[in-house]
């Protein structure tokens, strides 16, 4: 692991003002270094998903800065679309495009954004499909796939843009228990290849095994962060101790 900082988050706050004011994030600061796997854990409503969605500006932060590869992407003058191409995202509910084949799902962005020719993109997509064992489903539609297959496709779809960081928003929460393993395996192999990853998850086993650093959030704040060993075996924060005791 190098010490090169890929994403720098400073004093991030997010307030939702629909019906009543909800302070989802209350001053979050952290760094994500290149090649690092950061796992974010915490109870429901702790702000961990909002934090992740702020990283590629799917949620516009209320205040604070996010510096990605040296550029403050919270600046309204920055063209966020260019930077999003470098940040792959995987959603809880897969969000594959139901009207496109698996192959088209994967190639639509690189081709239509003129990052690659159709042939190049398809060659790359096929290579990635082989890697996750789904090459035979290239011409299937998402509705013909199982949940685990859909999520593996969603991961390689994001990889087709050759991102510098992958953001995972509870990637296994909507899956049958039997299918969690196949998705985690893909994520593990990604981590082993040195991909920078920020993962919001309830899979503590994954956090322990793959995470370089674990962040515990509650009430829109980072209450504790450290190595998996530190967080799981020697938790300092009382709220974290309570959270972990309920899990085990």
């Amino acid at each position, binding site marked *: 692991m190098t010490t090169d900082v890929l994403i720098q988050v400073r004093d991030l706050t997010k307030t939702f003002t629909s019906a009543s004011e909800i302070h989802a994030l209350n001053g979050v600061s952290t760094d994500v270094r290149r090649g690092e796997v950061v796992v974010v854990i915490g109870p429901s409503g702790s702000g961990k998903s909002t934090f992740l969605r702020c990283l590629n500006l799917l949620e516009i932060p209320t205040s604070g800065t996010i510096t990605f590869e040296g550029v403050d992407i919270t600046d309204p003058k920055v063209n966020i679309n260019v930077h999003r191409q470098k940040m792959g995202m995987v959603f809880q509910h897969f969000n594959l495009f*139901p009207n496109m084949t698996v192959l088209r799902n994967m190639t639509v962005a690189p081709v239509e954004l003129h990052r690659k020719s159709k042939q190049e993109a398809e060659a790359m997509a096929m290579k990635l499909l082989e890697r996750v064992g789904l090459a035979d489903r290239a011409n299937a539609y998402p509705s013909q796939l199982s949940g685990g297959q859909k999520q593996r496709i969603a991961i390689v779809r994001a990889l087709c843009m050759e991102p510098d960081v992958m953001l995972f928003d509870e990637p296994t929460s909507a899956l049958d228990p039997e299918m969690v393993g196949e998705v985690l395996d893909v994520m593990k192999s990604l981590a082993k290849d040195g991909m920078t990853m920020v993962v919001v998850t309830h899979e503590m086993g994954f956090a322990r095994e793959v995470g370089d650093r674990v962040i515990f959030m509650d009430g829109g704040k980072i209450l504790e962060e450290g190595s998996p060993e530190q967080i799981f075996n020697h938790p300092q924060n009382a709220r974290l101790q309570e959270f972990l005791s309920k899990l085990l």
Partner: protein
Amino acid sequence: MQAWFESLKADFELNFIQGNRWKFLLDGLGVTLIITLLAGLLGVVLGVIIAMIRSTYDKTAEGARKTLGRRLFGVLDKVCRVYLTVIRGTPVVVQLMIIYFVIFASSNNGTLIAALAFGLNSGAYVAEIVRGGIMSIDNGQFEAGRSLGFNYVQTMRFIVIPQAMKNVLPSLANEFIALLKETSVAGYVAEKDLTKAGDIIRSRTYSPFMPLIAVALIYLVLVMFFSWLVGKLERRLRNSDH
């Protein structure tokens, strides 16, 4: 029975064969088709544009900065709302006559004016159909598109609109069928469309049965043919649904 058949035959000859009166129907059919096609085209273009403006304004309401562009966009949205209210709140015949006798009083290209009037009318209905289609697409689809690096317009074009259009196709076909039949009031502004053609024959032969039934049959066949066409298209688009 024989006598009844003979009189039917005589009626047919009187209304369609004598004086080549069938030509009225043929010409009328042409006018009806031209008005419908032009109006349908204008309606879809107008409708999609308005649907885009309205749904974009609603979708981007949260967290929008109150810039000048945003305010102008708000004005545009208001204009669209007024258009929808006025068009959907008044009868198409009245709109047609206002456009023909008031706005384009000095023009004499009745077919184009009628097409414009019906197109403006249809656009309002298409706009609401398409907007419903756009709003029915799960926001996750939109977010997936944006997260891959598509900008707003590209996400709409490549991800949302194709799915929305597929969902609204039956409603759009319905609107087109309604439009085809609505053009039958074009006679109000002296357009010799299919309905008017039947009426002209009737006024010459004083025999209402044959021309009116013929006109009705032609509309029916047109609608059935179009429905069949749309059914085929729908089955092709349903490929991904399995």
